[in-house]
């Protein structure tokens, strides 16, 4: 087969937000492919993620949205807030549709029907599509190494249908499918599927990374790295859901930071060239998981042993990242040192009155 030239877009990596002691974001791209006028909830985490992602990608971008919040809430009456070409696909066919778009552009360029640089093809699937229903097709797209970026915006449940458990819902998370009660006091008994690591292990030729909306510049840089990578890339991004997590809307970004700081959502990159994990990302400080849990209503039913179990899970994550654990976190993994949520809330109220 004759070789053909594909003109590619290379997106520059943004600088560090902190210059010495000064907090100042780097110069951000001016294009705005995601515009206001959509009907996600106030303080929507996936929406923050969508905006940052599309801003990082720029105007020559094609967005693909399998069924999920970003389709249901955003494209009612056939009106979308997307300022670039956007298409909705079936929830199960996220990967195959994306692969099709990428392959079509390759073919059009080969045949000379598309002039100009290869577009950024981004599929933004919710965790329902990415971890349950569309897992097979996404795995296929990654395996065949189409030049695209597949993002799982991980709000840890099926949110647009009214908060049902997905395989990414954390241990202890309350959803309508995992209600806590006398038989199952913790709500959800299973630990979440380690989706990003599964993708990295199964498709080692792909760029795989995790990110969180709490670290916007890191997130935007990972999107750009994924798009600059020749071949398939996969990102899993933590995006809090105000309805499902039951928290005050202003805490969206704060939760994105806290989940990393308490170790429940390790941020890492998979380096496809050297085939190693890069665990060099470190949050500013480390906290016990209870600080993260107490902000959210979905964990309000947890007992001491459940919090300790989650702390043990977080400690394992820290160990896996090669971080030395402070004694306070090891101490917190013992159920005897934890209070259940209601008692902790009461104690805090009493402390306030004193």
């Amino acid at each position: 087969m004759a070789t053909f030239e594909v003109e590619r877009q290379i997106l520059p990596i943004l600088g560090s937000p902190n210059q010495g002691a000064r907090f100042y974001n780097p110069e951000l791209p001016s294009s705005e492919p995601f515009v206001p006028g959509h009907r996600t909830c106030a303080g929507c985490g996936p929406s923050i993620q969508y905006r940052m992602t599309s801003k990082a990608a720029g105007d020559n971008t094609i967005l693909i949205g399998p069924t999920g919040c970003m389709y249901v809430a955003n494209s009612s009456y056939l009106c979308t807030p997307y300022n670039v070409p956007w298409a909705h696909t079936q929830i199960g066919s996220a990967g195959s549709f994306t692969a099709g778009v990428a392959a079509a552009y390759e073919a059009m360029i080969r045949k000379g029907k598309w002039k100009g640089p290869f577009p950024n093809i981004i599929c933004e699937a919710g965790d329902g599509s990415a971890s349950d229903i569309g897992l097979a097709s996404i795995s296929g797209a990654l395996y065949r190494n189409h030049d695209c970026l597949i993002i799982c915006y991980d709000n840890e449940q099926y949110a647009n249908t009214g908060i049902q458990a997905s395989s990414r819902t954390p241990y202890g998370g309350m959803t309508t499918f995992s209600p806590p009660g006398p038989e199952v006091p913790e709500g959800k008994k299973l630990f979440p599927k380690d989706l990003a690591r599964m993708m990295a292990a199964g498709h080692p030729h792909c760029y795989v990374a995790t990110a969180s909306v709490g670290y916007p510049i890191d997130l935007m840089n990972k999107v750009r790295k994924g798009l600059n990578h020749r071949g398939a890339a996969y990102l899993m991004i933590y995006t809090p859901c105000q309805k499902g997590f039951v928290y005050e809307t202003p805490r969206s970004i704060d939760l994105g930071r806290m989940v990393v700081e308490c170790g429940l959502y390790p941020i890492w990159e998979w380096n496809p060239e050297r085939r190693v994990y890069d665990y060099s990302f470190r949050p500013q400080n480390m906290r016990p998981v209870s600080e993260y849990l107490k902000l959210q209503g979905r964990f309000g039913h947890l007992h001491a042993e459940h919090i300790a179990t989650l702390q043990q899970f977080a400690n394992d994550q820290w160990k896996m990242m090669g971080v030395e654990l402070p004694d306070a976190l090891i101490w917190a993994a013992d159920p005897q040192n934890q209070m259940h949520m209601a008692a902790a809330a009461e104690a805090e109220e009493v402390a306030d009155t004193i």
Partner: protein
Amino acid sequence: MSTKGTRIPDWLKVPFAGITPGPSQDKGQNLFPTGNWRSIRPVYRDKLPPCNNACGTNEKIQGYLDLVKRGKYLDAYALIKEDMPFPSVTGRVCYHPCEQACNRGKYDEAISIRAVERFLGDLGQSLKHDVVEAGPSNGKKVAVVGSGPAGHSAAYQLARIGYKVTILEKSSKAGGLNRGGIPDWVLPQHILDREIERLIELGIAIKTNCEVGKDVSWDDLKRDYDACVLAIGLTEPNGVRAEGEDKEGVLYGLPFLRDIGMGTSKVKLGPRVAVIGGGNTAIDCAREALRQGAIEVTMITVEANTDEMPCSPEDLHDMLEEGVDLWHGRALTAVLGAGKVETLQLHPARFSGAINASPITINRNVPAERFAVDNVIIAVGQRASIDWLPQEFKNERGTIKIDRFGRLGDTNFFAAGDIAQFGSGQPLMVVNAVGDGKRVAFNLDKALRGEPLQPRTVAVDVIMDLNRMNMTYFPHFPRAHQSMLSPVTRRKTQVEVIQGFSEKQASEEAGRCFSCGTCNACDNCYLVCPEPCIARPERSNGLYKILVDYCKGCRVCIEECPTGCLEGVPELDFDTGVVRMDTAFAISPGLHGRQAEELLNLASRPAKDI
């Protein structure tokens, strides 16, 4: 579905294009103005940073630190010059109330604001032409009596407005307390000379050796000038009412420093010197005594400990480093000796009131201490010398009687500086005198133009509190320290003790500023908005705008604003100045109405158009 960038078949074009308007980058998807979901609206409102509030002359400290951060040194210098005529002087001598008030001081260490001010002042000194120019002349003449901080400031501000200003100075050199009260090793004379040259460049005439009451009378001032600012300061030293205070070898703090500063000192100090008093002048006297040849210097204060002393703690620390002894809780009751000071008699004493300006209680029932010295310097405050002033304008404190605008009755005479602030609760410091001079100058201008005057005390707006800011964005970072001469080398020379910042240090130090309560274009609100409904025409302080048609009131921007400039306003309970959204409810009939009309007309249109 957006139609932009998609090729739509002709047969689909009309109904779909009619129903689904494409979004645009500037207007958004205006079919869904989601602003009517909101109950709380974010509003940008710049608040007063604590440093600006604490500064005696309300310098825009946060403003110039922000400019230094961005490398705009000349703009920063111009901003400082609005309120402060001589940043190179205050950058050396100020007791920096701004740093005590700095919010960063409650977090790690306060910003070294004075050092940055000095950096800017030294930059201004090196300029060939100053950034400030005299205002367009209004033909009126004003006399300023005294060329100390307050007089300097008043003359400077009046010249900027456009007055023809003459400064009357009784000494042979202009500068007042800046020259006579501050030793050379804190403020080198050439720095002050340059700042006074700047005044002459503004068109201000300085008459030295011209004392009011001797060379010029009250009536002369009234006749020759349209208005007059009396910034005569407190020039006469207080005594301690001890026996034998008139003996040879007894010196007074301010004249001692003044004669050295003016170059007319004939004093030869013996090896053992005692300093009476615990204020800044006393500290300067003690340190100057070392430089004038004293070997053992002892400071004797009535205050029971260092915390009570009315002085700058840094200067006290530097003084102790230079080897001055400090005695507390004693008062000088008699100076003993045959014609010359030989021994001091000390009794235990304390302040009988709560504040240290209250009367002193001396316990004479215990035996007195004797302390052998060669000289004693008494530095326990100053008073005014106003014999020439008409009796009606004198008050019971021995200073000038003024109203709250700084005016003497209904004359065109104004008083500023220590003479006006003594006893008013304001600290008698250089920066406070500068601020007073500035405000009185503006009042004088208003009085001559027949406008209502402003009170000398400034009304305070909301001062930004640390609790309302987001500290996540500010990592701990140590303060840059100015280098100093070592105590051993500096105690014998007149060389400046504290060294200035380099450019790198100054910009690094300014970078530590939180910009409390004030937008500094960090772009964080713009980046974290989920809508995104925060727009900015360009990235610049305070140019951010919230598209109220879309803002759902989630308050993420308020929570994530590092400086606390954003605040939430309940949507149904507006303060004045907030405009109610005008289109969130009104937009739909227009757009929907147009579409409904188009759909109705579809049937009547020829098929080939559809």
